[in-house]
């Protein structure tokens, strides 16, 4: 089945370019028919429904209220729920994140937005030391039902200080759960699960995916819809090589799988959905089937998510591997501004294709 993906690239905070692109979408991945939803609307509807269902849920962050959200994720929520459920904060991440965690100690369910996760570094002590570790240090007395969400990783042309991916950093911390949606269904199901979850969740979105539309099933549109935390999704089945990735790179991996199919290589694409807990079972089962692994992430290569996946597969499925494990990651440099350099600093579809072919001994 051919699905139409409309991609809206947001440039300079408002102007939009509309490009129509067709892509092959696996018939088994989405229920047959009809409805489509952008990731932005998926996130908005998820927060809306959870606020409606539970009066303890509230939203807090910079520009989430009156401005309708820096990326419009919280659009309409202030009007619908009022200033006692949607809080615009000053630009003080350490302060408002600590306040959010304290509110969670007392049993409320804050959804704290970071305008981008780059700014979360100002508040990282509260995420790690005040939130992640509290349930353990208090032997279960103090749990922290908080969600930290916002765009993560590279956008387009925003430079070194605004482009870092934090998946590896947060996912290394026991006590946190770290989620990374790709599609609209992921966005809805994982965010609803995160808000309902009694533990602290870091929810890594992607700015460039906000405007992307995906088919969405009736089930996913239901207000009770929820995805399990810790389970990866096989986006495309295959038998020759396993490609594991998350967030925006899932789209790139699917395109790479198309190109590989033209050359007779059948790639299985796994969308992690959850970085912590990492679904090692699904990853290893797939590699035991295909014997080859390519891991892809946007973030810095050293000590990344891919490194953990590769180590896990080498430890648990060594004798099944027919080729060395492959990592495709962002370049080992701060993100440059010039468009051509930025392109070189991020994984492209051809990088994933090349690595898969290497794993299949089809190239040097």
């Amino acid at each position, binding site marked *: 089945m051919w699905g139409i993906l409309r991609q809206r690239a947001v440039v300079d905070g408002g102007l939009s370019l509309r490009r129509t692109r067709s892509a092959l979408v696996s018939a088994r991945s989405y229920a047959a028919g009809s409805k489509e939803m952008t990731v932005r609307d998926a996130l908005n509807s998820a927060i809306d429904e959870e606020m409606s269902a539970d009066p303890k849920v509230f939203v807090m962050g910079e520009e989430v209220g009156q401005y309708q959200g820096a990326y419009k994720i919280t659009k309409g929520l202030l009007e619908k729920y009022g200033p006692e459920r949607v809080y615009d904060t000053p630009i003080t991440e350490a302060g408002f994140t600590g306040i959010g965690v304290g509110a969670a100690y007392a049993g*409320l369910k804050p959804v704290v937005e970071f305008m981008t996760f780059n700014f979360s570094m100002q508040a990282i002590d509260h995420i790690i030391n005040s939130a992640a570790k509290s349930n353990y240090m208090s032997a279960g007395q103090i749990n922290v039902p908080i969600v930290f969400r916002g765009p993560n990783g590279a956008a387009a042309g925003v430079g070194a200080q605004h482009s870092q991916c934090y998946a590896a950093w947060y996912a290394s911390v026991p006590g946190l759960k770290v989620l990374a949606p790709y599609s609209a269904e992921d966005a809805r199901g994982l965010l609803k699960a995160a808000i309902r979850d009694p533990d602290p969740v870091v929810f890594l979105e992607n700015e460039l995916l906000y405007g992307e539309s995906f088919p969405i099933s009736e089930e996913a549109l239901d207000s009770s819809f929820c995805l399990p935390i810790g389970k990866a999704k096989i986006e495309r089945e295959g038998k020759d090589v396993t490609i594991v990735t998350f967030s925006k790179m899932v789209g790139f991996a699917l395109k790479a799988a198309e190109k590989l199919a033209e050359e007779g290589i059948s790639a299985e694409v796994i969308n992690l959905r959850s970085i912590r807990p990492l679904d090692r079972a699904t990853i290893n089962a797939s590699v035991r089937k295909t014997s080859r692994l390519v891991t892809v992430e946007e973030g810095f290569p050293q000590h990344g998510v891919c490194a953990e996946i590769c180590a896990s597969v080498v430890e648990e499925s060594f004798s099944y591997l027919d080729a060395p494990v492959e990592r495709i990651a962002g370049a080992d440099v701060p993100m440059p501004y010039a468009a051509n350099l930025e392109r070189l600093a991020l994984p492209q579809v051809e990088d994933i294709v090349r690595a898969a072919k290497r794993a299949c001994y089809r190239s040097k």
Partner: protein
Amino acid sequence: MALSRLSLRSNPFLKPSTTSIRRHVSTDTTPITIETAVPFESHLCDAPSRSVVTSSSEILSFFRDMARMRRTEIAADSLYKAKMIRGFCHLYDGQEALAVGMEAAITKKDAIITSYRDHCTFLGRGGELVEAFSELMGRKRGCSNGKGGSMHFYKKDACFYGGHGIVGAQIPLGCGLAFAQKYSKEEFVTFALYGDGAANQGQLFEALNIAALWDLPAILVCENNHYGMGTATWRSAKSPAYFKRGDYVPGLKVDGMDALAVKQACKFAKEHALKNGPIVLEMDTYRYHGHSMSDPGSTYRTRDEVSGVRQVRDPIERVRKLLLSYDIATEKELKDMEKEVRKEVDDAVAQAKESPVPEPSELFTNMYVKDCGVESFGADRKELKVTLT
């Protein structure tokens, strides 16, 4: 000490029973009014009256509770030197008046959050001695099952939210607790305690700004013991008038070694916070020990200074003098009470020493409330791997 009215009634002082954990107090709750020795200093508000309404039973309970706290910290000192307590151990002796005075002004539904110097705050919230010593020694019976340690005592059922190791972090957290209280429309407040060292932290000002904007019932309490680790206030703060540092937020400076003054200030602060939003209290206090057990406390202050404060301002001695001058108890009765407290503490230490260490399986418990079948690993993941359920 200024006295406005002497109680000439000789109170039937009940001999305490031998069961050790219960508080033993005189049953006389007739109001007595006592003037604080030191006036309050205020910033952007009218200071409360220096006349504090109390009672014999309350003053007696101050004495007993402070004596218990003092003995606890001294016992912790010995246990640390005997290597039964490891890591960090920050002692509160000298500052007891703050813990008891605050408790006298509030309920167990008002929240308290503090730093790592938390043993006595925990006891003030109703924490048990055996739980405290067990936690210090890393035993199962500890208030955090041995998994927290000295800096991470909690008692959620009494709204005591810890016990925090990162200097200053407890202040935004405390403002968050106050946020939740306001959100839930409860008429309770939060006291966020921090030291003079933490008073310069940026996150304090960030949180206070939000607390003031949103009218949160947050009371920031600076326990000014004059030294942030080894750095005196004049070396760390351009403006060491901590009660004024809230700028647009009202503040009050209090003699923190006077339990009654502390009570009055906290009562005033609670009323203020419920009506007008945040307020800063600066408690002028002192710690006899160094910053922690690894600090002799003598490289940055003289022994004369420490002994001078002990002679002139000790909080327990002040209450003893009060009890004697008001004829609420005799010297012998007070000495007997101290002996009982000492026995209480010694028994608790002995009990704690009997408590076993946590099971090895506890390494992996309480990571999450909802485990979702997640795996966790020991040092050798091929040797030790568990599925959290």
